[in-house]
């Protein structure tokens, strides 16, 4: 009986069909979504954190900040939208490090599943959570006085860009989680890119108010470009220059960090 089973399996040593790879990704995504739903406190925190930043800049600090030609609420809220998807991505680093430490990765790697499904399923589940957080923050933004001033199509394009940026950035966090391997360190390490990119950007104040040495970085870094594009899509104004740059950043970050993550995944467990 054993022998028959061996011969049958040996006959199909072909590469994994795409259909099965997609099914593997779905399976892992579902597993991670269940994990997200079953740790509601973590889900709650990933929504509360950007909500606090939003309220802080709307009501506490916002009164002291003047941005010429625009209501500060309309200026700052699109930046907070981006922050909402960036902060969600941090749990990607944490969760991957946890899985590596728990040894469940060994089980997955001893199965005939598509190897990339482990990472793809993680990032897709996390982007779903980010979308939920984003929906909540958009609702809160509207409640505190933020308004869309353009067509529905442009607004949807802006939301899509935020999600695309959030997804691309999930792979940065994936690389961090796989590189440090330890859950606590992963969480601390993942704060860094979020802090640097979010605070040294046009999210909260115009870049022109920053010191000269910081401006070249702040003006051209991916978060600024993306926030500028999103603002233009929501509030009007010239959009194309920032939009194509933001799209390039998304694709670039995605491709580079996908490659790094896959390599790290292969090494981390071998």
């Amino acid at each position, binding site marked *: 009986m054993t022998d028959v089973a061996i011969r049958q399996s040996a006959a199909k040593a072909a590469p994994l069909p795409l259909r099965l790879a997609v099914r593997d990704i779905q399976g892992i995504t579902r597993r991670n979504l269940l994990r997200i739903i*079953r740790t509601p406190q973590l889900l709650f925190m990933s929504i509360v954190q950007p909500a606090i930043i939003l309220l802080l800049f709307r009501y506490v600090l916002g009164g002291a900040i003047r941005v010429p030609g625009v209501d500060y609420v309309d200026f700052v809220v699109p930046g907070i939208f981006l922050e909402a998807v960036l902060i969600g991505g941090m749990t990607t680093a944490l969760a991957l490090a946890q899985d590596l430490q728990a040894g469940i990765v060994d089980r997955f*790697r001893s199965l005939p599943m598509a190897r990339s499904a482990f990472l793809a399923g993680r990032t897709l589940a996390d982007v779903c959570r980010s979308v939920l957080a984003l929906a909540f923050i958009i609702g809160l933004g509207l409640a505190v006085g933020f308004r869309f001033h353009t067509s529905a199509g442009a607004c949807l394009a802006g939301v899509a860009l935020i999600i695309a940026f959030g997804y691309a950035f999930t792979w940065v966090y994936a690389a961090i989680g796989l590189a440090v391997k330890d859950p606590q360190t992963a969480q601390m390490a993942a704060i860094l890119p979020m802090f640097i990119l979010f605070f040294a950007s046009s999210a909260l104040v115009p870049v022109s108010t920053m010191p000269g040495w910081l401006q070249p970085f702040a003006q051209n870094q991916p978060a600024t470009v993306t926030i500028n594009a999103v603002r233009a899509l929501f509030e009007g104004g010239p959009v194309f220059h920032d939009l194509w740059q933001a799209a390039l950043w998304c694709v670039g970050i995605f491709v580079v960090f996908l490659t790094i993550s896959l390599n790290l995944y292969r090494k981390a467990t071998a």
Partner: protein
Amino acid sequence: MTDPRQAERRTDAAVEVEGVTKRFGSTLALDDVSFSVQPGEVLALLGPNGAGKTTVIRVLTTLLKPDSGRARVAGLDVQKDARTIRSMIGLAGQYATVDELLTGRENLELIGLLYHLDKAVYRHRAQDALDRMSLTGAGDNQVKTYSGGMRRRLDLAASLIGRPPVLFLDEPTTGLDPRTRNDLWQFIEELVAEGTTVLLTTQYMEEAEHLAKAIVVLDAGRVAAQGTADELKDQLGGNVLEVQVSKRADLEKAAALIAGLASAPLRLDADLNRISLPVKGGARVLIAAGRALDDAGVELEDLGIRRPSLDDVFLAITGHPTASGNDPGNASTGGDR
């Protein structure tokens, strides 16, 4: 597409390890390890912590690339045919690698999906496995509510969802209470009766002897000995003389008096005031020992001769006892140490 040359190279062994060496930095984890497991057989890799047992399992389950040597499962190379092998093996570990936040059923169904079974098949098998592992009632609870024994059973069930012809169990019973351990043993025996080939690792001689026909003794990354339990005992050649002294103070003295009779390193158990001494002869050695001890005025609690246990064999082969014989306060002395 089957390559005829590949078919030619195929051997009958379910698992074949040939001169496998693996180095981690300056540590030689596996040093020229060779053994094979026949289809439908249980082989136990026996050795203390750090002997390289898990490394062998990781190589055979395609998780780790050996530095040199060859490893084959079902006649297929673990490096070249990794994916095919993965569809034919099951792996259950010392650390139950199931998802805490999923239910038992969700864990099993996910593994079934990742084995690329049809949904109807893995759903059915998950229910089956839950029933078989006495987890029926707990199947829809999250694993974090499970006891250690339940987790281990679920882990084993997960490794069986693909109905693999070859099963790898890395210290399947370490840390389990005796009852749960016996349940697992019984279950492993059932699997073997159904034709599954099993390679298991253990630190416990008793477990190796109970489950496995073939035993490979691994020590510091090398194969120290291999054979059936009886063959290993025959290697020691002869019997074990056991002396229990009445007074702790007499232990060392008694050991010195009879050390000359030993055919391999003797063992002192300070807790039980007992000396275990591999010997070649039978009654004559017993009488000689009794006379020598009596002449010297050593008070005896007990004196006897018995067939060697695998613990004795392991000690004789590797120079140190197995985990089960490794009680604190256990001292071992020997002619060549």
